[in-house]
């Protein structure tokens, strides 16, 4: 259990491609830090620099206070779970988990003990003799986890470990990961592009965009007070509605609705109100059970808006519906997309 310090880190790929200009991040010991951001923003690059799989162009990374820039991956005392699991296809589940221990010269009985322990934690006892191809996706994922935990490393690194699972399994597995991490109390750096996953897992949420950090904070803090339009659009599902302030006059105070400002309002903050300022033509209604998403279009004909409502009575496609929002639920952003603090 160690902290991870990333200081002034820069990454330039061969061919002079600067992917990360200058990045600063500190992860406390035992914390689960989730990096989230759109594809290509440099999440994996950062993670791989921490792992030692990618040279660090500039800056310093410290794990447990020790500078690791020049260390080989194995010397950094980390474990990594890959997106495609990277299980050794020709080895049994047992051997997959034991491989790292064997390479470190751990004694046989000790290996036995640790692997069995991890297998028990992950419910893999019955599969230890199988090959990865004889396992389902979820089971494979758990083997990858098992491989990471048997070594009891200073830190876990996860690169989109759930993206190969189907929706249902993904939800289930992320609970397991969270549970496990809380019990083991190992520092973890977790990369995903799924904001929901990020929200539910993180102690500390880091939103990245184009190699830079847009916002760092507790998930609910980021959700409640997105620091930028980018974060506002990225976190939350269905995503926050982004409405040019001049489009819906009644929504916000006049003084704010100036100079290219935009208003953000979450779908669940829109409340059906026949006198509300937001008028939309309903296109599609999705009934999700407890809630329904109403997809509509503002009268300007270009701005799409989603309202998330509970209850049985919903408008039908083609109807015109009106919504209101409480002042406290409105987020204001300036022309550069930065939050205008209120």
């Amino acid at each position, binding site marked *: 259990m160690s902290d991870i310090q990333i200081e002034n880190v820069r990454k330039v790929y061969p061919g002079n491609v600067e992917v990360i200009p200058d990045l600063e991040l500190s992860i406390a010991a035992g914390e689960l830090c989730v990096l989230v951001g759109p594809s290509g923003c440099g999440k994996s690059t950062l993670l791989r620099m921490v*792992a*030692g*799989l990618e040279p660090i162009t500039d800056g310093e990374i410290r794990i447990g206070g020790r500078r690791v820039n020049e260390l*080989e*991956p*194995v010397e950094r005392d*980390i*474990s*990594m779970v*890959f*997106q*495609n699991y*990277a299980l*050794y*296809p*020709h080895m049994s589940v047992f051997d997959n988990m034991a*491989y*790292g221990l064997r*390479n*470190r010269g751990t004694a046989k009985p000790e290996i036995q003990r640790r692997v069995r322990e991890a297998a028990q934690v992950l419910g893999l006892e019955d599969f230890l003799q199988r090959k990865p*191809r004889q396992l389902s996706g979820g089971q494979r994922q758990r083997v990858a986890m098992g*491989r990471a935990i048997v070594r009891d490393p200073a830190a876990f690194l996860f690169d989109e470990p759930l993206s190969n699972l189907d929706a249902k399994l993904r939800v289930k597995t992320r609970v397991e990961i969270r549970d496990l991490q809380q019990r083991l109390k190992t520092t973890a750096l977790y990369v995903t592009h799924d904001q929901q996953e990020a929200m539910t897992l993180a102690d500390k949420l880091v939103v990245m965009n184009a190699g830079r950090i847009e916002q760092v904070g507790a998930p609910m803090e980021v959700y409640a007070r997105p620091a930028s339009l980018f974060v506002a659009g990225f976190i939350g599902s269905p995503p926050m509605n982004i409405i040019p302030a001049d489009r819906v006059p009644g929504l916000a105070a006049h003084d704010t609705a100036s100079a290219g400002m935009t208003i953000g309002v979450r779908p669940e903050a829109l409340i059906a109100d026949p006198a509300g300022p937001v008028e939309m033509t309903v296109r599609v209604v999705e009934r999700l059970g407890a809630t329904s998403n109403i997809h509509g279009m503002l009268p300007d004909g270009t701005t799409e808006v989603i309202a998330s409502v509970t209850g049985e009575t919903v408008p039908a496609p083609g109807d015109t519906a009106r919504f209101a929002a409480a002042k406290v639920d409105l987020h204001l952003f300036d022309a550069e997309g930065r939050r205008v603090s209120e």
Partner: protein
Amino acid sequence: MRAKRVTFRHRWLPYALIAPQIIITIIFFLWPASQAIYQSVLRQDAFGLRTEFVGMANFERLFGDPLYLESFWTTMAYSAMVASSGMLIALILAIMADRVIRTATAYRTLLIWPYAVAPAVAGVLWWFLFNPTIGIAAYAMDMLGYDWNHYLDGGDAMALIVIAATWRQVSYNFLFFLAGLQAIPKSLTEAAAIDGAGPVKRFWSIQLPLLSPTVFFLIVVNVVYAFFETFGVVHATTSGGPGNATNILVYKVWRDAFEGLNLGSSAAQSVILMVIVIALTAIQFRYIERRVEY
């Protein structure tokens, strides 16, 4: 043998599609092969003017003939050497090239050349190089204090055909190994690095096992190559000599038929070879079918 789950239905089309190959196979393969079987139980004079049925006598003679058995072992040793040295060298080069991915293509382009050289011509080239009187390789050996003479020394002659045959096949093996190595997901190597395996350990415990389908495929290809396609190499260099040191089975089949004019024996040898190869084919199919289906 399996077909697709999704198939087409048609009454005569599949027959029409398969007919050309079947016809060619029957005329130029099955018919001659059955002739070979027929001839293997006959004794004939060279011109085919007198024919006598002798039952299994030709086979009995072969199995009782120490020279045939010697030729058999020679072939085994030769194939093993060609296949193993060809694959080993290719593998080493491929590993090196795989590690320097960006320049791999340049090396590949250079290494590909020998593959284009006919075995017979490869034989001629190496024969030229190792010619005890004018060959530069023989000269170099001489400098190193080794008196190279493949006309006399069976070991030298064997080395010569192994080198000539291997030289050409390394290119081919190299292509497959490089492609195979590059197809191994990078993340596996990385996972192994994190798991504390150094380059050598990674190779033995991860890359090589994952390369095993390629290795298996190449073993089959190389053995078949050594068995049959290197006829030209032998013919162009040692002609099976000195003594019987390089008299490999295909060469013997050919020589007993075309030089020895002993058609019955040659046909019997053909039959034995066919049996061996059909067995090999069946094994290969078994393996591949299993691999495809898991």
